């Protein structure tokens, strides 16, 4: 009767353990690419069941092993089980994977082997939880870990743990309630636990669970105390470079711009180095379709092979003043940027070191090498300078093809965006004036550049509308997208361009051809800006983002000689522009200083204050963690030192100190000696718990020293062995 009821309690507790562990497996399909989750859950259930049946250890080992092989067989092996080919396959896999492990090529391990390891882990967990829940009856730690696990996943990943939390809550309350009864029965050695007592115990338990559930459900909940990191990570993930393997993703160049918004972490990992005679923006491609949330490309990419590296890309017309320049780009090996970055006016491109053909999509301006894995190229380009006069006098008759693509706006774009656009340009007449008015609107009206705490539009919100009227803080995507939308609402064709800014001039210049400076461009230089169409000029880049300088030169013709364009032709406006540029450069320079500092501290955050706070938090957390670990494992390491120390000591009080230290450990383990309990009685009690005789034997030696005043240094070997075993046993 007693045994069976205890078995029932143990089974229920262990079942709770399984349910809790299930919660650990559930999110795997969301947060990783684990497939066939049900099979793994099934195997876990199987292992738990076997453990619960308390079979002989060899039998349960065999059963679990058989289950493991069966799962592997079902998932991966088409051969008949236990046939010759089957064993051969297992052997080959094993050999291969062991080799990969020895070479530390973790990614090369086969799915079968990874599943095998995972199943092994499940198996071990079934044993560990059996130990925690049934033998040691210490379930709180696991419950706590489960809560922490789910809350972290819920906070930092896509996994929605709102239901899981409730399940864990109920299951853990049940488990702890029953564990309470079971340990009470054990401790007081109650043999008769009749139906009345069971109801007297379980009805309140049930009541407490239901009540706390109701209270928890009905009570008001505090809003999140810090910005939800999920969209933040999502957005940075989508902006991130091509490092697909990384779990935490950062800012950088990315393909998918359909969901803009959210804060991002600065990532200073280098993407490429460029040697140019003058700094310039690095274009990658443009996008034409604004969805209300972000940018997409309405036409499919149509890559054409460019013969001899002559790039037939014309973003502006031939009559524009240009300077012939040369640039060399060397890609960082791990940057994995699949597209070519190029300056405006690209004419010719040549792969460095290897001969490769380049492909161009004319609409977006996206250039790709035919073979991947190229590491650098040489570009000849004619960098444009735009004559303001020409822009002012440009006709406004846009071709139909341009209108079709670059005037698109979402149907549900709020009216106030259009109203604002008209209001901004109300005094402007030419297209150029309108464009510059809008370009300067942001800096003149208190819009701020900021990478943190940047909002993400809600389901029914427009990205541009939110930025223009509500948040007024953001980074390049906000500014550039807003400018494009504002222009389009005025029927001015515009498109959104992405690429990189000029980057940082390297302090130590590598050996490059004369006249070239080497710039380092990192993921944090990823940028977006605006191109506006002028029928007589072509696409002209504009830079609306506060704190960034315009990528190209604009000049006003005072003489009729167009060849003077990049000489000292200056006038007031250009002065102004330059001053502005200088100021802005100072600003960016400051930013970069910060970034450098934080980079030295090993942090990835851009703003000084948050860097400091974070580094403090992390330092404190690490110290706390170390302290806690030391504190919680104090008996472990202290006993190691004590044993060493005791072995060196000779006097009689050694064994007394050692014995009392052991008593202290045991007391901490919940086996406390009562005041009136003699050592012998206590030792017997301890031995019953441990199912051994070590404590009684040790106590026997100890009794002789303290009650007979005997010197037991002759038996010190035996004593220390017993002592050590007991310490280990009580710490395990």
């Amino acid at each position: 009767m007693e045994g069976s009821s205890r078995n029932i309690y143990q089974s229920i507790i262990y079942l709770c353990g399984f349910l809790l562990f299930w919660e650990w497996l559930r999110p795997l399909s969301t947060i990783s690419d684990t497939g066939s989750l049900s099979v793994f859950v099934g195997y876990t259930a199987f292992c738990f069941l076997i453990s619960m049946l308390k079979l002989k250890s060899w039998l349960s080992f065999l059963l679990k092993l058989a289950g493991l092989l069966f799962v592997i067989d079902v998932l991966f092996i088409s051969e008949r089980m236990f046939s010759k080919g089957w064993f051969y396959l297992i052997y080959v896999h094993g050999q291969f994977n062991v080799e990969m492990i020895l070479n530390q090529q973790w990614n090369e391990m086969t799915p079968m082997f990874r599943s095998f390891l995972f199943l092994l882990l499940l198996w071990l967990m079934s044993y560990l939880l059996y130990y925690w829940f049934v033998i040691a009856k210490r379930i709180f730690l696991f419950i706590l870990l489960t809560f922490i696990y789910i809350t972290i996943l819920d906070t930092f990943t896509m996994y929605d743990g709102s239901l899981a939390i409730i399940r864990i809550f109920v299951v853990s309350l049940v488990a702890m309630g029953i564990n309470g009864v079971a340990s009470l029965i054990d401790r007081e050695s109650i043999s008769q636990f009749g139906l009345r007592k069971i109801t007297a115990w379980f009805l309140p338990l049930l009541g407490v669970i239901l009540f706390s559930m109701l209270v928890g459900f009905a009570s008001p909940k505090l809003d999140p105390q810090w910005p939800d990191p999920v969209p933040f990570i999502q957005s940075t993930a989508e902006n991130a470079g091509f490092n697909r393997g990384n779990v935490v993703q950062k800012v950088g160049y990315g393909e998918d711009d359909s969901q803009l918004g959210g804060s991002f972490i600065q990532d200073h990992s280098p993407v490429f180095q460029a040697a140019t005679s003058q700094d310039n923006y690095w274009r990658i491609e443009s996008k034409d379709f604004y969805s209300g949330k972000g940018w997409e490309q309405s036409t499919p990419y149509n890559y054409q092979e460019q013969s001899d590296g002559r790039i037939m890309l014309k973003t502006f017309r031939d009559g524009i003043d240009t300077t012939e320049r040369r640039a060399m780009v060397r890609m960082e090996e791990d940057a994995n940027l699949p597209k070519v970055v190029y300056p405006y006016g690209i004419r010719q491109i040549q792969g460095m070191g290897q001969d490769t053909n380049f492909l161009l999509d004319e609409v977006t301006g996206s250039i790709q090498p035919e073979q991947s894995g190229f590491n650098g190229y040489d570009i000849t380009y004619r960098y444009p300078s735009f004559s303001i006069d020409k822009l002012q006098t440009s006709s406004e008759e846009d071709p139909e093809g341009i209108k079709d693509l670059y005037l698109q706006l979402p149907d549900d774009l709020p009216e106030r965006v259009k109203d604002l656009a008209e209001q901004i340009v109300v005094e402007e007449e030419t297209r150029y004036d309108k464009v510059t008015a809008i370009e300067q609107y942001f800096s003149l009206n208190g819009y701020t550049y900021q990478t943190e705490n940047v909002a993400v539009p809600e389901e029914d919100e427009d990205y541009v509308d939110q930025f223009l009227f509500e948040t007024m803080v953001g980074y390049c995507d906000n500014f550039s997208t807003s400018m494009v939308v504002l222009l389009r609402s005025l029927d001015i064709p515009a498109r959104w361009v992405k690429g990189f800014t000029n980057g940082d001039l390297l302090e130590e210049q590598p050996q490059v051809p004369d006249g070239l400076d080497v710039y380092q461009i990192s993921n944090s230089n990823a940028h977006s800006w605006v191109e506006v169409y002028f029928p007589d000029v072509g696409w002209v880049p504009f830079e609306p983002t506060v704190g960034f300088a315009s990528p190209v030169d604009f000049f006003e013709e005072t003489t009729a000689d167009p060849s003077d364009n990049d000489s000292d032709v200056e006038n007031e406006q250009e002065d102004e522009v330059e001053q502005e540029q200088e100021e802005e450069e100072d600003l960016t320079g400051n930013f970069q200083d910060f970034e450098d500092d934080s980079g030295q501290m090993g942090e990835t955050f851009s703003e000084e204050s948050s860097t400091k706070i974070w580094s403090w938090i992390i330092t404190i957390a690490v110290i706390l963690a170390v302290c806690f670990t030391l504190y919680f494992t104090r008996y472990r390491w202290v006993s190691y030192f004590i044993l060493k120390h005791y072995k060196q000591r000779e006097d009689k009080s050694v064994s007394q100190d050692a014995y009392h230290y052991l008593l202290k450990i045991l007391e901490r383990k919940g086996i406390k000696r009562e005041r009136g309990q003699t050592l012998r009685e206590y030792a017997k009690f301890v031995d019953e718990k441990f199912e051994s005789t070590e404590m009684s034997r040790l106590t026997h030696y100890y009794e002789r020293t303290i009650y007979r005043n005997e010197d037991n240094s002759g038996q010190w070997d035996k004593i220390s062995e017993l002592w050590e075993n007991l310490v280990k046993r009580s710490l395990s």
Partner: protein
Amino acid sequence: MTQQIFLYNSKVSKILRNINKVMIGKEEVATLSLVALLAEGHVLLEDVPGVGKTMLVRTLSKSVNCEFKRIQFTPDLLPSDVTGVSIYNPKEMEFEFRGGPILGDIVLADEINRTSPKTQSALLEAMEEMSVTVDGRSISLNQPFFVMATQNPIEYEGTYPLPEAQLDRFLLKLNMGYPSQEQELEMLERTSKEHPIQTIDSVMTKEELISIQKEVREVFVDKPVQQYIVSIVTKTRTHRSVYLGVSPRGSIALMKAAKAYAFIHGRDYVIPDDVKYLAPFVLGHRIILNSEAKFEGITPGVVVNEILGAVPVPVRREYP
């Protein structure tokens, strides 16, 4: 010392084995009686007739090869019936001392509470003084001398319960208790042909017993254990249910008994376990409860156990 213990220990266990042959399920009483014998104390057995008190003493005396005497106490028993009388021998023309039953080695004083206090005190005095005085002559008692007195707790009519002060003279007070059904069945089985007492042999001589008693006195009681004994005893004096606590003689008794108990277990040193085990038997009859406690149904055993639970066991010693 250790060797002697080893030597005698086997004999001691043989005595216990003998008793177990005759008495079934009475290991505890047997051990405790042996404790009293080895500690040179005396035992008061309180139990109903027919549970084997006599058999226990007889087995014990036969095992240690001692002379067994029995005094059946009755209301009209005179002190001289216990101690002996001088009788005039006309032939020798002088008084000749005829020793009473108290001059045996092991004496069973049966139903001691049925006799007059005068006779009782004659016995108790003899137990304490180890000698009797008859007609001005002091006659020392045998060595060893072991009294096992019994009293019947049922019949109080016409009895003279031993005064508390005199109970002090007994080292231990024991209860026999009834055997269990199986034990009683086995008892029937064993006694059906011949009584098992016929089959046992003595395991030691009287001299050996005396030297064992000497060894027992030598058993080591360390300071912490002595301190433990004293703590327990003094605690009885302040316990709220106690009217009169245990006297210092009780402390000595507890230590003596503990030494014997340790010896029986093959140890030449006393551990707190010995003290703790023996305390209820040694101290129980030395405590007089106050009337509230009696009214509440508390027994001395309960009090002693409560004290044992509260007095901390010494588990470390001071090293200079």
